[in-house]
């Protein structure tokens, strides 16, 4: 779950981190009223993807009329497939320096990592790739959290080669201690995969203010954050933006990734489905999707999976690849037959199944006129040949 900028900032504010004065507008008239109240403001598109500045989704305006005009333009935009439904209008700051402060997951260290850099305002991934020495890192003990001395170390390391700081490094380090700790606690409390302030502005008065932020919450922790999910849903009706097929799959509770090929792929287990896609590609075909029905799939789930895959008009044939462990081949066969009959599927349907209840599954399929394969490689070859023919 990726929060919008203004929602992330609200969370920062609740954690005691300063943010610029701002209001949310859903209409040009609202933006105009905010500009009348706040004066010069930045009008910023609220979307779940980065790069909105480059896309023209941010405008700085001096008058209510300009705010209305720019808000109208931005609210009509779609940024990387995400329609803009609201704009955040906030006051500007007297900026002395810009920093980056963030917490993210470090897989290789099995830990979260706290990062601080004087290269604020740039994409941190870009800084990491081009000048990794500009990012100082700290891996806090998950129970102790970052300690004062560690945050000071982090600050001094990041500021060592930083040009033209407005304040002595020791003052910045001192101010960073409570801020970094607040942000770290917030990240833990919200189960954040990414919790970053970028840029973190140091004002000419020597105060830290979070002028932009990113907060992505671990989907596995949704059960603890129903309030945030509701907040997000209020702004973004389900399925707005992003890939429409993936949004539909999410509604159906299916693990699905949309790709741009023409062979529909269904299997059980993430690794097996990834391998199914690879096999299709190896045989010269292009997979249309990834769909994992998981362990112990029922006939209903398999039917729903087929229905889902066929929503994509690019699909010219489907490859179902099942290794029966907890999943029973007969159950899968029933689902496939039910789907074919209910949806009147005429396109090629190639099934490969092996494992638990394989005999019964194969018998059911054969009686229904579908010839199941045993080798996944052979089945991939067959589905690719059949879908190419129907081209």
């Amino acid at each position, binding site marked *: 779950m990726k929060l919008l900028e203004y929602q992330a900032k609200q969370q920062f504010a609740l954690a005691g981190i300063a943010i610029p004065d701002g209001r949310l507008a859903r209409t040009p008239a609202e933006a105009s009223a905010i500009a009348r109240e706040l004066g010069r403001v930045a009008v910023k598109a609220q979307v779940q993807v980065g790069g909105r500045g480059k896309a023209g989704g941010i405008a700085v305006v001096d008058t209510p009329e300009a705010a209305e005009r720019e808000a109208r333009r931005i609210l009509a935009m779609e940024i990387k497939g995400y329609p803009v439904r609201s704009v955040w209008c906030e006051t500007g700051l007297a900026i002395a320096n810009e920093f980056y402060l963030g917490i993210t997951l470090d897989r290789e260290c099995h830990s979260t990592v706290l990062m601080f850099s004087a290269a604020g305002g740039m994409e941190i991934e870009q800084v990491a790739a081009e000048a990794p020495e500009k990012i100082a890192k700290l891996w806090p*003990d998950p129970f102790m959290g970052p300690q004062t001395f560690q945050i000071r170390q982090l600050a001094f390391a990041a500021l060592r080669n930083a040009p033209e700081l407005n304040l002595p490094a020791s003052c910045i380090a001192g101010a960073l201690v409570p801020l970094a700790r607040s942000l770290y606690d917030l990240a833990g409390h919200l189960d954040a995969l990414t919790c970053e302030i970028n840029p973190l502005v140091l004002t000419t008065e020597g105060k830290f203010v979070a002028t932009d932020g990113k907060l992505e919450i671990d989907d*596995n922790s949704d059960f603890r954050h129903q309030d945030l999910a509701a907040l997000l849903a209020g702004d973004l009706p389900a399925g707005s933006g992003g890939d429409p097929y993936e949004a539909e799959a999410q509604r159906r509770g299916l693990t699905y990734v949309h790709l741009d090929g023409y062979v529909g792929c269904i299997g059980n287990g*993430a*690794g*097996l489905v*990834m391998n199914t896609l*690879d096999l299709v590609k190896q045989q010269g075909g292009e997979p249309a999707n990834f769909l994992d029905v998981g362990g112990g799939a029922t006939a209903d789930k398999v039917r729903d999976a087929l229905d889902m895959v066929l929503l994509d008009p690019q699909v010219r044939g489907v490859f179902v690849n099942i290794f029966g462990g907890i999943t029973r081949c007969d159950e899968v066969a029933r689902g496939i037959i039910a789907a074919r009959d209910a949806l009147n599927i005429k396109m090629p349907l190639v099934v490969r199944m092996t494992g638990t209840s394989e005999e019964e599954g194969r018998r059911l399929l054969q009686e229904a006129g579908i010839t199941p394969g045993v080798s996944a490689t052979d089945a991939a070859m067959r589905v690719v040949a059949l879908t190419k023919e129907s081209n």
Partner: protein
Amino acid sequence: MSVLLNAASRVLVQGMTGREGGFHTAQMRAYGTNVVAGVSPGKGGTERDGVPVFDTVTDAVAATDADVSAIFVPAPFAADAIMESALADIALTVCITEGIPIHDTIRARSVVMRGGNRRLLGPNCPGLVTPGQSKVGIIPNHISLPGPVGVVARSGTLMYEVIQALSQAGLGQTTSVGIGGDPVSGLSFKDVLELFAKDPATQTVVMIGEIGGASEEEAAAWIAKTGFDKPVVAFISGRTAPPGKRMGHAGAIISGNTGSAQGKIDALTAAGAGIADTIEDVVRLTSGHLPAAPSVR
């Protein structure tokens, strides 16, 4: 011989009285696993199919000397179960549960690593099996065969495929270990390779990796550094996965420049591993590494 698990292992099941826990406990026992206890808070003093149930892991260990725990409790409570197992000095904690919040896993893992001779396998893993001796987790019972091949994999179903293909070709396994598909977990490829290095019965190793993270690269570096002398056959899935998309497993995602299948294949190739493009290839390459390879059925 084997790694991590053998016929003498005394297994307890956390969440044994639940639906998944109950079903798989029966499967494990059918395989021959010595399940000595179950743990379900509030059900202590009862029995399930002749296995005593305890309120806490500490009670279960005191009464039964269990040394391996299988965790089947729901995701919101699973990290707590891992810590309970580790702090009761269980040597090997196997967490099958999928969907544990990552911050929970980081905390639980750090407790397991805090000292002693404790290990964590998973979470979000299928468990492990030492053919003919013992199985902990959800790997299907009928696919394994005892023999000289060590198997280590991230994906469950893909590991089942490989185990079955190896067994059908007469290539049995010492132990098959599923390390799981989460971005943060216990035993890594490198850790399991270290165990296979010390196991004289393991003559060759099959490694089944996938996109995301750098665990395969870490293993490759370890192979190159230590001169691991057992042949390794590696199979990497997700070659067609686009960057930035999570492919089913929480950890199967290419982020920026890390985690691509090609990067892993290159690293393993450089370390001298044989790269298999298909499961048929895994069998062919593995069979080539065994001097007295039995005829393929």
